[in-house]
């Protein structure tokens, strides 16, 4: 049936066109099929990247299109690397990335390990645990803002109930010491299930016979965990860390909704600084240079990390 249809199509194709098609090699045909995707990629990914690299060497401002664009050489890069505020924003980002990844990995792996025990109702609890991950960051940011509200927020009342501190003194988003942790808590609450899911996949991929062999050798549960479970799940944990690391390095929505970078600049992560420079101060050239620096940093770190991941997998 299929052959007959193909024959009919071939017969119906006008001779000049048929000749042309017959002349295309397999490689040519492959290029023909992937070219729309490549063109799309070039238009929306590669071209903007090269355009941003070009702009990063200029004083271009998107809000002044009629002004003469001057070539500044490396001046934007020098200014960024010498700007103390930028380094503070990078430190804030690093702090945020470190603590969120640490907490999410520890809690996520523990939850995965518990869920993997396959206790009664484990499927139900898995679904419940996954709920925060399914919510929109805009929704999560907004309702946590209300939860943290010192006069009416449940969080403040819960802390007050446990510690005796008056709820109006639990100012999670206004206090310089607490605000960074407020964001870490929300991000951990939202994304730990994601880490748990990847770790669970890792735990479920460990063949049962290895544990059976360990039982025969009378290895303790603790020994089994350190010698079998953890090493075999490690590539999955590392993968989760990579994904969360990249995501959190460019974290914007949650911070913007919860604190807007405040109080002061306490929670101003690199992406907030970048947005302010690009779309509020309209320093397009300067912010392009900053974006390139961030891109190179993430790209470089991710590459080193992937190499380490491959080594772990080969062991």
């Amino acid at each position, binding site marked *: 049936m299929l052959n007959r249809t193909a024959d009919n199509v071939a017969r119906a194709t006008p001779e000049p066109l048929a000749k042309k098609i017959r002349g295309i090699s397999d490689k040519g045909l492959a290029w023909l099929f992937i070219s729309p995707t490549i063109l799309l990629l070039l238009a929306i990914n590669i071209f903007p990247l090269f355009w941003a690299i070009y702009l990063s060497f200029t004083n271009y401002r998107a809000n002044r299109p009629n002004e003469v664009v001057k070539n500044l050489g490396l001046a934007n890069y020098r200014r960024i690397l010498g700007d103390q*505020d930028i380094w503070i924003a990078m430190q804030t980002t690093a702090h945020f990335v470190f603590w969120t990844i640490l907490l999410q990995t520890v809690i996520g792996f523990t939850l995965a390990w518990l869920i993997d025990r396959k206790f009664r109702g484990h499927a139900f609890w898995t679904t419940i645990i996954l709920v925060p991950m399914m919510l929109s960051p805009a929704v999560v940011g907004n309702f946590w803002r209300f939860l943290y509200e010192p006069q009416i927020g449940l969080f403040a009342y819960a802390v007050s109930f446990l510690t005796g501190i008056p709820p109006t003194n639990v100012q999670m988003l*206004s206090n310089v010491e607490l605000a960074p942790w407020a964001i870490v808590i929300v991000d951990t609450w939202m994304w730990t299930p994601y880490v748990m899911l990847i770790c669970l996949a890792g735990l479920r991929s460990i063949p049962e016979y290895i544990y059976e062999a360990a039982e025969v050798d009378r290895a303790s549960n603790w020994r089994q965990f350190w010698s079998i479970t953890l090493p075999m799940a490690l590539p999955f944990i590392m993968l989760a860390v990579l994904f969360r690391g990249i995501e959190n390095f460019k974290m914007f929505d949650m911070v913007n909704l919860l*604190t*807007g970078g405040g109080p*002061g600049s306490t929670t101003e992560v690199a992406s907030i600084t970048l947005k302010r420079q690009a779309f509020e101060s309209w320093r397009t050239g300067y912010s392009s240079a900053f974006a390139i620096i961030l891109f190179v940093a993430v790209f470089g770190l991710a590459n080193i990390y992937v190499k380490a991941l491959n080594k772990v997998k080969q062991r």
Partner: protein
Amino acid sequence: MKSTLKLALGLASATLASTAVSNVAHAEDLTLCWAAWDPANALVELSKDFTKETGIGMKFEFVPWTNYADRFLNELNSHGKLCDLIIGDSQWIGGAAENGHYVKLNDFFDKEKISMDDFVPATVVGYSEWPKNTPNYWALPAMGDVVGWTYRKDWFSRPELQKEFKEKYGWDLAPPTTFDQLKQIAEFFQKRQIDGKTVYGASIYTERGSEGITMGAMDVLYSYGFQYENPKKPYEMEGFVNSEKSVKGLEFYKALYDCCTPPGASNSYMGEGVDAFKSGQVAMHMNFAFTWPGLQKDENVGGDKIGYFVNPKGPDGDQFAQLGGQGISVVSYSDKQESALKYIKWFANKDVQGKWWSLGGYSCLNSVVKDPKFPSSQPYAQAFLDSMAIVKDFWAEPSYAPLLQASQKRFHDYVVAGQASPKDALDGLVKDWTQVFQDDGKM
């Protein structure tokens, strides 16, 4: 059968014709862009008269204040045709004029005999002129606004509170005339139990994202002696922005934030201020005058319970207030400039301006605000008039956005986060602003 066919054809033609007519009518509709706030609703009501008179329909694009600048500056910068008319913020005037976003209105004003002398001088300088204090007009003053204060008249008049206050501070509990008095009142009410509820001293601007904390801090700094630049040498800021008087002013603003604001009020601007006052949380409330008509009508805190006062004096007796408000401009990328100019001509009319005030807008026309009946026309009218007489505004330079971002950061870092000292904050501000003007080639 034939007659049915004719009827169907007739109906179809009539439908097509009416669609065409309505399309023509819609093609003439003007779109006016502004912030989403109470005066915008008043303008919708007012503009119905314009449509009635001219047949030109009005569409409105209102954006919440937090996104207002981002949204419409993007629209102007991208030469978008969404807005035919725009009520742009006073600080945009320099950039909008120099980048060609607004139509220059001088010839139009001459032709239509619209004189800027008929408007409150501060609003002409603030909303229409660029360069400042030159007769180059890019907007018609549309909505006068200024930062002032509301207070709980009912609490202030309670005999037991008056007695306690007098004993503690030695003067009568009344609307403050100096910032020191304002702080004393705020301290007096902070965490006080009134009608079984804990109340707080004052709601002030602390917002970080757009312009909040700058508007609030400047409102105090001006009266303490802050100046943007050397009056004799433009762009010379050292010793003016970071003068000793300015340092004292910023120190005061932080002290007011630390002592007397509701818990968690670290990112508070117009909306949050209104909420704090309406919910009976605060005794005093700093906000733009546009919020006053709404508060006056509020069932819980309006009517006889609310009072208004002008921004108090600083330690040397200087008294200024932060200018708000906007002018209305014709967008140069609009295809309907002629109709848009018709709207401006109509809006400048004395009767229309009178109705504008009665609906809740703040007219800038002298004949409206200097009318002998004006001060008694609303309970807040006198405070508005007095406030408009002492206004000062933020930079209106084309680079106003980076200038504003710098002050937002420096003020929030110091006032809310308590980082560094007021001197460091203002020295840093001089450094940031100098960099902006150097980048612009102005220094």
